[in-house]
């Protein structure tokens, strides 16, 4: 039965180990039985696996085994190679050469200065040369040591190879048994027995990986050695250490990109100006509200609103935070910052929530939008700051735009998530009572999605705050500019106080928003 292989028949294919393993079926039947009879680790030796290592794994289709032991054997072989023909200490020798050249240069300079009568300068140069000599001596010493290490490295390599072979021999049957179980569950997608195509693939992989890697780690100039080994067939050097392409493609493409941006900036300037004007209008409104209104009024309104919306504890915290901002003289900067991120957050919500609703309803639209959202969230801000400057110039409106790009995805995503989380049965009930699509949206879907939407808004507010410093890079003032300045002059104290101010602004806004939400949910 063990040599029958898989003869196709109308009945379900056999799941016997012998039929699975093909060649040496009887051996594997016994080995698997031993493994399955043992609790804990089963000692089971496979000579073929130990001899052929990764190739055995390839032949049997156990690719995890193949890759793991390919890497381990390669490591052992590299040690062997270094011990046998490696130019040990070559790096130290190169360092020695550089040091000697440097010493000669300094000494020559010293001699020149001496000749010019600058005794102090010459003294300094000589001192440097003296220090370099010490470095050179140490490099010489290490190079000698490294050369002496060759034998021990060779021995270590041998020991490693032996250890890897032992591991292979003892691990092979365990890995193969696990593979057998996978094959039983999915016979179509897992290899059974030995397959020639797998062996060929394994050998090609080994040939492609092992020689080059070995060469790279055992000789100092692999490019030249490889050229010599191939008999100069492909030129004097074969670039295996560096990819043989410089910036030519990159610069050509990036020039294209420049031209494209310039063209867009020229041709759509009206649209960009319109967007800028819109944002500026919004921003100015908020700034007038927060800055032109007398500070006692603004503070009072904020504290009262906090206590009304979120309770006494939040109100006390808010009052303390506002006091900090005021006494540190950061009141105006803080209000500018709040206006900036307030504009950003409000625009995010105004644009993001409708999009979220759409994406929640249309699976296809969401599938298209998802990569865009990922892009907006993961792309480093500095990348889109460049085109933003190109199109919108510098100042606060572009800062708001950068905030929009970064902070909008959470509210879009969470709105869509909330919309999709509304139970189908509830929607069906509403439709059964004659709801129109709009009634369904406002009476059922939005209220039920509200917790998720609120979480999204919260995230968006916090993310806009984290953009404040980056927005200041393109000329948006406020607390961000303060921090940027302290970064430039290494003003640690200023940075700390400014950072604390941003933190307090964020916490006040966040606590009030959460308080509103908690009150709604708790009371509703």
């Amino acid at each position, binding site marked *: 039965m063990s040599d029958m292989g898989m003869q196709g028949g109308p009945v379900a294919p056999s799941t016997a180990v012998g039929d699975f393993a093909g060649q040496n079926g009887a051996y594997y039947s016994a080995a698997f039985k031993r493994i399955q009879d043992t609790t804990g680790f089963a000692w089971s030796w496979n000579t073929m696996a130990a001899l052929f290592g990764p190739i055995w794994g390839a032949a049997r289709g156990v690719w995890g085994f193949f890759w793991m032991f390919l890497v381990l054997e390669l490591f052992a072989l590299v040690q062997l190679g270094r011990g046998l023909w490696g130019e040990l200490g070559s790096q130290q020798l190169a360092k020695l050469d550089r040091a000697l050249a440097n010493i000669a240069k300094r000494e020559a300079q010293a001699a020149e200065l001496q000749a010019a009568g600058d005794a102090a300068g010459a003294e300094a140069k000589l001192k440097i040369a003296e220090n370099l000599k010490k470095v050179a001596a140490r490099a010489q010493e290490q190079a000698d040591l490294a050369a002496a290490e060759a034998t021990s490295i060779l021995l270590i390599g041998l020991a490693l190879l032996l250890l890897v072979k032992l591991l292979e021999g003892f691990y092979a049957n365990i890995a193969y048994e696990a593979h057998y179980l996978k094959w039983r569950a999915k016979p179509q997608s897992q290899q059974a027995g030995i397959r020639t195509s797998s062996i060929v693939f394994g050998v090609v992989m080994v040939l492609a990986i092992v020689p080059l890697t070995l060469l790279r780690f055992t000789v100092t100039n692999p490019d030249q050695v490889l050229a010599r080994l191939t008999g100069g067939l492909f030129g004097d050097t074969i670039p295996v250490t560096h990819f043989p392409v410089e910036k030519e493609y990159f610069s050509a493409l990036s020039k294209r990109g420049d031209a494209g941006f310039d063209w867009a900036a020229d041709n759509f300037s009206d649209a960009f100006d319109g967007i800028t004007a819109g944002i500026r209008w919004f921003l100015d409104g908020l700034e007038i509200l927060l800055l032109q209104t007398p500070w006692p009024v603004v503070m009072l309104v904020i504290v009262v609103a906090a206590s009304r919306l979120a309770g006494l504890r939040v109100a006390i915290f808010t009052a303390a935070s506002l006091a900090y901002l005021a006494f540190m003289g950061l009141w105006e900067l803080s209000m500018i910052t709040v206006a900036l991120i307030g504009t950003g957050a409000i625009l995010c919500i105004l644009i993001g929530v409708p999009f979220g609703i759409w994406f929640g309803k249309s699976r296809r639209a969401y599938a298209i939008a998802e990569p865009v959202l990922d892009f907006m969230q993961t792309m480093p801000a500095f990348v889109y700051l460049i085109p933003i400057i190109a199109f919108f110039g510098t100042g606060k409106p572009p800062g708001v735009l950068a905030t929009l790009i970064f902070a909008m995805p959470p509210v879009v995503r969470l709105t869509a998530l909330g919309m999709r989380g509304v139970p189908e*049965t509830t929607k069906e*009930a509403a439709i059964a009572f*004659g*709801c129109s699509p709009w*009634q369904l949206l406002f*009476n059922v879907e939005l209220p039920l999605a509200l917790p998720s939407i609120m979480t999204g808004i919260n995230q968006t507010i916090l993310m806009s705050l984290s953009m404040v410093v980056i927005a200041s890079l393109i000329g948006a003032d406020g607390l961000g500019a303060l921090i940027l300045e302290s970064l430039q002059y290494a003003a640690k104290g200023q940075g700390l106080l400014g950072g604390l101010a941003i933190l307090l602004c964020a916490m006040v806004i966040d606590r009030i928003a959460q308080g509103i939400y908690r009150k709604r949910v708790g009371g509703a």
Partner: protein
Amino acid sequence: MGTDEVIRLERVWKVFGEQAEDAIAAIQARGLSKAEVLGEFGCVVGIANCSFSVKKGEIFCVMGLSGSGKSTMVRHINRLIEPSAGSITVLGQDVLALSPDQLRKMRATNLGMVFQHMALLPHRTVRDNVAFPLQVRGEPKSRRWEVSQRCLEMVDLQGYEDRFPRELSGGMQQRVGLARALASDPDVLLMDEPFSALDPLIRRQLQDQFMALSAELGKTTVFITHDLDEAIRIGTRIAIMKDGRIVQIGTPEEIVTRPADDYVRDFVDGISKLKLVFAHSIMVPISQYRAKHWENLDASIRVSHATDLDHLIDVSTATEQPIVITADDGTDVGVIDKPTLLKGIQGGKA
């Protein structure tokens, strides 16, 4: 009770899948089974060639196991699901010909629905949940409150108006669901396994409450259930479904005494027949009895032909004589003696 039809379904098919039409044609031509249709066309048969009509004031029960298509069928009546073929008439109107606006209007005014999982709106109070159909219709708040108050009283939930659904037990939530369905004063109630998710004791209470309400309001009702006991308790007529087809339609008595096939018989076997089988279906006709027996029946107890077995047992324990069965006009039509009664209880005669 009038005899005019309120709901009429004719040869309605619902096949889910892209090749629905081909599948229907193939089923009609070759009589494929549900599994064969799935294999050949990749289509799932929801309901197949179902026809029935519901009269005004009737409680029409649709009974079947899960997957038999009963919930799919009820959703055709208010067109929550579009049929693949067939015609559906509700209150004299062709439902399939309605425009979206007309359909919404019909749902909001003529059709009330109760769901297995209540499907109440968690963010609204009980009152606002009940008033929801009226709000959809655009009624002013005072009227909404007035109506929801009345409906909550009907289901004995006065005092809970300002609570939220999550503060109520499952049975109370389902009563809110019932009140919501009644709020728009619909002509037709569609009830999709309304009591299935409740525990047996509460289920029985709600059945009683529903039957009392139903007797009072006389609403035409389509009642979906997987429980034959429930169907028999509350149904005027019962349709039994299997694999999307209606196997039998009849009164509870007809279903119990004359099951159409083995499938129905299996269900009926476990049902107590005492209150479902009546004197006229087990009695020996008076002429036939007289031909064999000579005793005088004048002194015998006389009961109506509509007396159920349960009552007949009570009567027969009090007398040694055979019981004489009378027609509505008081004439003697049949006789039940002890052997006949015992056979009837056993179901042999039926």
